C-alpha cells in the first residue's frame, strides 16, 4: 500500500477528498439564533460550557493574504534587481508570482462559494414556495370522494366476479373450441376410414387371392426394374422413361384420392352437391365455348365465301 493511502481513502485508484481552501467562514454573517434551542431563561447550564453558541472565527481572504502572502516592506526596482545575484532574482520573482496566484485563487474560490450560496438560496425559495402551494392545495370534492383507498379493496371481494353476460360469452367460446376439436378428430377418423376402405380392395380375403399375392411377391419381376436402372450408363439415364409415381401422387393430392379410391373430402363434396355444381359449371363453360367457336367458324366461312364471290365478279369484268 502506498504511503499515506490509508489516511486519504484507504482504496487505491480513488483520489482523496479535495481540501477546503477556506477552513473558517470567509465572510461575516449575522447569526440568528434558531427558536426553541439552547438553554431557556432561568435554567442553569453546566460548567465549562458556554451558554450561547460560539461563532467560528472569520478569516477573510484579505486577512489570510496578509498573514501568508504579505506585501514586502521594500519594493525593489528593476535596476536593483538586475544587480542582484541570479538566485536572489529568482526568489523575488517566485515570491511575487506566489502572491499573485494565491490572491487569484482566493478570489475564484470566493466567487465559487457565492455562486453555490446563491444556488442554495434559490432552491430554498423554490422549496418554500412549493411547500406553501402544497399547504394551500385542497383536494377537490371529486378527488376526495372517488379516490379508492387501499382499505376499501379489502372490504369487498378482491376479484370482481364475472357477470352473466361474460359467463355466457365464456361458455360459448369453450363450446366452440370443443366442437372445433371434435370436428377435427372426426375428420381424421373419416380420413383413416376411407384409407382403410380403399385399401381393403387389395386385401387377401380369399385363398386364390392370397396365393396370387404370394406368387407375385416371390417372382423376380419386382427386381427387374431396379436391375435395369442399375445396368444403365449415366449417359443413357436421361433417355429412360421416367417413373410416373410422382405424377400419380400429385394427382392423388389434387383429387383427394386415398389408396387409389376417393377420399373423405371428395365424398363429402359429392354428398353436399358441390361436385354436381362443379360438373354443371364445367358443362356450361364447355357449351358456351363450343357455341362461341361455332359462331367464329361460321363468321370466317361467310367472309371467305364473300371474298370468293368478289374475285369471281372481278374476273368476269376483266374478261
Amino acid at each position: 500500500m502506498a504511503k499515506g493511502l490509508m489516511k486519504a481513502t484507504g482504496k487505491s485508484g480513488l483520489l482523496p477528498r479535495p481540501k477546503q481552501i477556506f477552513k473558517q467562514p470567509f465572510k461575516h454573517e449575522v447569526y440568528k439564533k434558531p427558536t426553541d434551542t439552547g438553554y431557556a431563561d432561568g435554567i442553569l447550564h453546566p460548567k465549562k460550557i458556554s451558554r450561547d453558541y460560539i461563532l467560528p472565527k472569520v478569516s477573510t481572504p484579505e486577512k489570510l493574504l496578509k498573514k501568508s502572502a504579505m506585501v514586502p516592506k521594500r519594493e525593489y526596482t528593476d535596476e536593483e534587481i538586475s544587480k542582484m545575484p541570479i538566485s536572489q532574482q529568482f526568489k523575488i520573482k517566485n515570491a511575487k508570482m506566489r502572491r499573485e496566484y494565491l490572491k487569484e485563487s482566493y478570489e475564484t474560490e470566493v466567487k465559487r462559494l457565492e455562486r453555490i450560496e446563491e444556488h442554495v438560496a434559490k432552491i430554498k425559495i423554490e422549496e418554500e414556495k412549493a411547500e406553501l402551494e402544497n399547504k394551500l392545495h385542497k383536494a377537490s370534492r371529486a378527488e376526495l370522494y372517488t379516490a379508492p383507498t387501499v382499505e376499501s379493496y379489502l372490504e369487498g371481494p378482491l376479484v370482481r366476479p364475472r357477470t352473466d353476460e361474460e359467463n355466457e360469452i365464456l361458455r360459448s367460446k369453450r363450446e366452440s373450441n370443443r366442437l372445433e376439436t371434435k370436428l377435427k378428430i372426426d375428420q381424421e377418423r373419416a380420413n383413416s376410414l376411407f384409407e382403410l376402405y380403399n385399401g381393403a380392395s387389395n386385401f387377401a380375403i380369399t385363398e386364390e387371392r392370397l396365393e396370387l399375392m404370394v406368387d407375385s411377391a416371390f417372382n423376380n419381376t419386382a427386381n427387374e426394374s431396379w436391375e435395369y436402372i442399375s445396368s444403365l450408363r449415366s449417359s443413357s439415364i436421361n433417355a429412360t422413361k421416367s417413373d410416373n409415381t410422382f405424377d400419380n401422387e400429385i394427382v392423388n393430392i389434387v383429387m383427394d384420392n386415398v389408396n387409389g379410391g376417393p377420399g373423405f373430402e371428395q365424398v363429402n363434396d359429392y354428398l353436399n352437391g358441390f361436385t354436381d355444381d362443379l360438373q354443371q359449371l364445367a358443362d356450361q363453360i364447355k357449351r358456351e365455348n363450343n357455341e362461341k367457336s361455332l359462331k367464329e367458324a361460321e363468321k370466317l366461312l361467310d367472309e371467305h365465301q364473300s371474298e370468293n364471290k368478289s374475285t369471281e365478279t372481278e374476273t368476269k369484268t376483266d374478261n
Partner: protein
Amino acid sequence: MSIVSLANVCAHLQNVSMARAPLASIPYTRLHLNIALGLHKEGFISSLQRGSQNGPDITPVEVTPDNISTRRLWLGMKYRQGKPVLSKFQLISKPNRRVYANAEDLQSFASGNRFRFVKPVMPGEIVFVRPRGSKEVINLHEAVKKHVDGELLCRVF
C-alpha cells in the same frame, strides 16, 4: 399454501432491500395486501400501488378472473442514509410448524417474553398476527388490545 407464498414474499423483500432496489412487486392476494398495508402503516415501505407484471398501474384497472394472474402489488422500498429500513422479514409460523397463541400468550409475548421457541420481540420490531377465524392481519399490539387468539405470521425489523 398461503404461508408458503408469504415466505416467498418475505425472502423477496429482504433480497430487494439488500439490492437497494426502489420498487418490489409481490402477488396480489388478500393476505399480501393486508401485510403490505401493515408494513406501510408501520413505516417500513414508502408506497403501495396496484399494478400488473409490467409495473404499477397509471390508471386504475379492474381486477377480473381474466387478469388476476398478471396482477401484482408494487411496494416502494425505503432507505435511510444508504441503509434499508426493512432489513429482516421472517416467518414465525411455518407450514409444518404452525404457531398459534391465545390472548394471554400474546400478551406475555408482547411484553417481551419468549413464547415457545419464538424469540422475544425486540424494540422496533413488528409482529403480524392473524386472528383465529379471520382473514385480516393485525399488529401484535392490536391483537393484545383486542384480546384475541391468533396465529403468529411473521416478524419484521
